[in-house]
């Protein structure tokens, strides 16, 4: 995300004062003054996003650590609680996210080719899929509240191992809640990128913001690819 916003605000009108070194005959208007050339700027932005995603892995890693520990402690409760999750909605959401990754990748491709229409269509599709995912998540959450299987004082459980089941739902809400927040942030980023694409800001020599936003979007999808089997498919073998 870093450079997405920066470039947006700099605008094409930014003029760098007296460059001391020659770097090609023409200045790209998207080059910020503290970088030597576009290649350096793009490498920095991409590396920045990768480093950011590493911190995201650690962020989710803390919760996965809790998951692993409690699943080991409460195998029965986890299996029973997992059976209460709706495989249909979870599976549909998985498909939706995978498709949204495809449209995101197409949007990046369109930006690289300087195809404005392609960017806009694919970004809008990506956002629609993202919103659909969140809608389905809301339906699922509502079901949990209806069935009183939200951890806390009103938690009701009549099957095996209520303690373990409550631990499962604690982790379920923490993990999927954090994932949903990341989806919402992703939709915010997409709105900015869509606006920039609308203004025709991206072309073959400058498409870094689309590319690194895509990295973020794919990362959030991949987190779900881990969440789905760990939460929904647990203990359903055979």
């Amino acid at each position, binding site marked *: 995300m870093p450079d997405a916003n920066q470039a947006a605000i700099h605008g094409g009108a930014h003029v760098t004062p007296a460059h001391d070194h020659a770097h090609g005959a023409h200045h790209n208007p998207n080059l910020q003054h503290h970088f030597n050339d576009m290649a350096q700027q793009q490498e920095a932005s991409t590396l920045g996003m990768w480093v950011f995603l590493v911190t995201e892995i650690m962020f989710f890693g803390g919760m996965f650590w809790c998951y692993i520990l409690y699943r080991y*402690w*409460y195998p*029965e*409760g986890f299996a029973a609680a997992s059976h209460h999750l709706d495989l249909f909605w979870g599976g549909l959401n998985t498909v939706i996210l995978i498709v949204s990754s495809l449209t995101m990748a197409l949007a990046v491709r369109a930006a690289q080719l300087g195809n404005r229409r392609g960017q806009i269509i694919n970004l809008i599709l990506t956002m629609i899929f993202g919103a659909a995912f969140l809608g389905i998540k809301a339906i699922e959450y509502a079901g949990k509240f209806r069935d009183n299987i939200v951890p806390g004082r009103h938690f009701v459980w009549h099957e*095996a*191992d*209520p*303690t*373990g089941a409550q631990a499962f739902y604690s982790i379920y809400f923490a993990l999927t809640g954090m994932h949903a927040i990341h989806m919402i942030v992703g939709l915010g980023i997409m709105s900015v990128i869509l606006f920039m694409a609308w203004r025709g800001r991206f072309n073959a020599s400058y498409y870094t913001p689309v590319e690194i936003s895509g990295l973020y979007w794919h990362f959030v999808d991949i987190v779900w690819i881990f969440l789905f089997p760990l939460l929904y498919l647990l203990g359903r073998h055979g």
Partner: protein
Amino acid sequence: MGQTLPLFPEAASTLAGNVDALYFFLLAVSAFFAVLIAVLVIVFAVKFRRRSPDEVGAPITGSLALELLWTIIPLIITLVMFVWGAWVFLDLARPPRGSMEIFVVGKQWMWKAQHPGGQREINELHVPVGRNVRLTIGSEDVIHSYYIPAFRQKIDAVPGKLTTMWFNATKPGEYRLFCAEYCGTKHSGMIGRIVAMAPDDFEQWLAGGAGATPVAGGEKLFADLACNTCHKTDSGGRGPVLNGVAGNPVQLIDGSTVVADDNYLRESIMNPQAKIVAGYQPLMPTFQGLVNEEGLLQLIAYIKSLPAAPAAPAAGGSGQ
């Protein structure tokens, strides 16, 4: 207790000397290196002080031999420290068999203890000199830590599990008892004393305050909570026979085996579905909220007191 400016704590348990010996070893090594560095730094800083404004230092980039020297020597020394420290730790952490067992429960902000003979005390603990004493410690609310500086012993009291500590007092006297893990407003008031007594005096003290023993209390709870409707002394019950379970391996429904230690027994009462014994249905309800930490310790004491039943081997679980 009571000196104006003590510089070293009293040592009053069999293992305190081991801890102090390790401490002095570390202190000696640390003092040697701290003094070495300080002397070198000061000598160099004086001897090689700048004599003219444009002077520069000698062109020395480094020395592999020296780097290896001051990597390997500290490595060897720290490994010695590790082994010695682990040695002392294992002695401190593992109670010997046959120790006298006292139950302790921490709660905001007091320590409650119950002796095998039923004597109860708060913020005090009377123990005999010359006997191995094992404390089984639980907590009713937040994390506390049972700390007896004179014995160089400490263990956290963690809600949701049981921990153990042991010692063997060497000198009659009174020693400080502290809560070492911050536990809220009156943390610094959660203190007390350990009274180590000659064996005869201790017997006399015990005789003064006998009440219902933990085993008797546990037996009563076992009946009041209707545990005995399922856990019978023959294999006809819906739950496993408990005679002879404590301390022995139990085979579970998933094929694995666990040793039925205090924490296993505790979990089986509070969260019975977590580990199901092979050959039984997961029928038992949780007793969380129905029995407090002291009651739990009494139930465990009772289960541990049950004689191994000759009729039904508790573990092994085939064809039950």
